[in-house]
């Protein structure tokens, strides 16, 4: 999973919307092109995320967006839209 690590330009991050950043991370973690990440795509069933990728995804999101995603919140995310909605609500909270 180290191909994800670091080298993120902090300035670029500051100018990116959190939901776009979330999509970029999702795309990297699932190794699925961005255009396949439709809002209704289901994370496990359609994108093939497994338990290892799930944990990776959550930590990447937390670190990139400087938020904490409690287990129970993550348990309610089934689609791409639910992830982007959640990070948007947290980042603007």
């Amino acid at each position, binding site marked *: *999973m*180290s191909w994800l690590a670091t080298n993120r330009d902090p300035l670029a991050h500051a100018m990116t919307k959190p939901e776009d950043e979330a999509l970029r991370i999702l795309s990297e973690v699932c190794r699925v092109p961005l255009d396949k990440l439709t809002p209704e795509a*289901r*994370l*496990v*069933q359609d994108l*093939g*995320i*497994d*338990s*290892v990728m*799930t*944990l*990776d995804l*959550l*930590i*990447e999101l*937390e*670190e990139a967006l400087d938020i*904490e995603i*409690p*287990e*129970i*919140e*993550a*348990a*309610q*995310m*089934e689609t791409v839209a639910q992830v982007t909605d959640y990070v948007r609500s947290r980042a603007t909270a």
Partner: protein
Amino acid sequence: MSRTIVDILARLADSSDHGIVEYDRRGRAGEMRSHAEIHRRARAAAAAFAASGVEPGHVVFLQLPNGHDLVECFLGAVVAGALPCCLAPPRALGGLEAYQQRIAHLASAFPASHLIAEEDTGSRSGHQYTQPPDRGDGAPLADLPEVAPESIAFLQLTSGTSRTPKAVRISHAALCANVRGILDGGRGVDHEAYVSWLPLYHDMGLVGMLFCALESRSTMHLFRPETFVARPLNWLKTIASTGAPTITTVPNFALQHCVNAVTADKLEGLDFSRWRVSGCGAERVRESTLREFAERFGPFGFRSEAFVPCYGMAEATLAITFDRKDAPPREVDGHVSCGRAVPGTEIVIRSVEGEPVPEGVEGEITARGPGLCSGYTGDVVESPIRDGWLHTGDRGFVRDGELFVTGRFKDLIIIDGHNIDPDEVEAIGDRVVRTPGGRCGSFSVDRDGREHVVLVVEVPTGGDNDRFTEWADAIGSEFASLFGFRIRDLVFVKRGDLPTTSSGKVRRAQLRTQYEAGELDVLARHES
């Protein structure tokens, strides 16, 4: 030597230089909490439990992440005479419903039980819960009780999702015997270092790491599983810097994950020469993984002699055999040796008729010794112990006294160290397709060095493509929400095509053989 968990706890009272370091989700270390402080806090938890209605014999479900709260509530429940039982967390990405169902099933199977959880998980559990009790300075302390070694100390769930939860009952004596066997057989001494991210709801994390660390009064660095998965380097760096002989135990996939995720340039300056035991168990140990791991980490001081492949299961508290020589593990025909029986334990390989077979001949692995469980809770499941011998359902042979595990007689699927009961996978197919008289068969296949789930479903003749897509979608969605990953291959066949026994039970092993040989008459399939 401790005879009960209460003895283990009592001996912690004067251990103030060693303890547990808790790491948060991001891998940041907290201050070490000494064993003496853990001792006090466990007694405080016990007093609080008793005051809140926990009675001897009640079950205390602990829905808590790896950390001080979980350790101290577990020990506190034991002091209160209750039976602690650690639960897996709600699974991320769509696991909320499955989590609530699991809690509901547990509550109905164990009416005299309590749920301890943090606010976020507790409030969404759909069940009454209480938060870990306050154990700060000045909290009242329970006295340590006299406990009979043969009494049950805790429950260990063996498959997490089931409608009829299967919980193994472990006595104080079994726990202490197994821990002592692991320490003695592994030349464990006091005041070593344990660095673990294994969940404490897993027997290898609870018994092999936590209780071995407590009994030897060694410092434990306790990570969360997700932290390891996302950042294996944190765990490796901690191993390199404990300043003491260091012990770890992980499933095979974790060693492979380190090889895949941590390149040599990240290891500059790390020294693994004090990594004394690198245990590997809970799923098949792969020779290729050990070799690649040794190649990557050898230049940084890792010794192949540190590898300790092991074999065990919750029904034996934990360990049955492990590699005990100070040499790299042996390999025969692609199978890695899982070493010799834990001191005090015997293993015998038996034929289908139950008779011992000669050395080198494959058969069912059976074991006898003081670490065996006391059976399952309830009367739903038959005890795996017959005439004093645990019938493991695993296949293997012994050569020169060492066990080689080659496969399974029982139909169990193991993904990343977690057990999946094929009954539960098949039940999804049954619920969705509802073919009168139709059957489902599930098993695992090996691909890319991991196990993957296959489900074969019988359907009424004349299913059209739209129906197949609909069924595949519904099965896939239910499976994903229950287990958190995808079925590798979902195959539809005609009703009556699955091989069965005379009583109508699906022969899963034969089905797997037909599947692998391409002999199934496939109507439709959905691979991922």
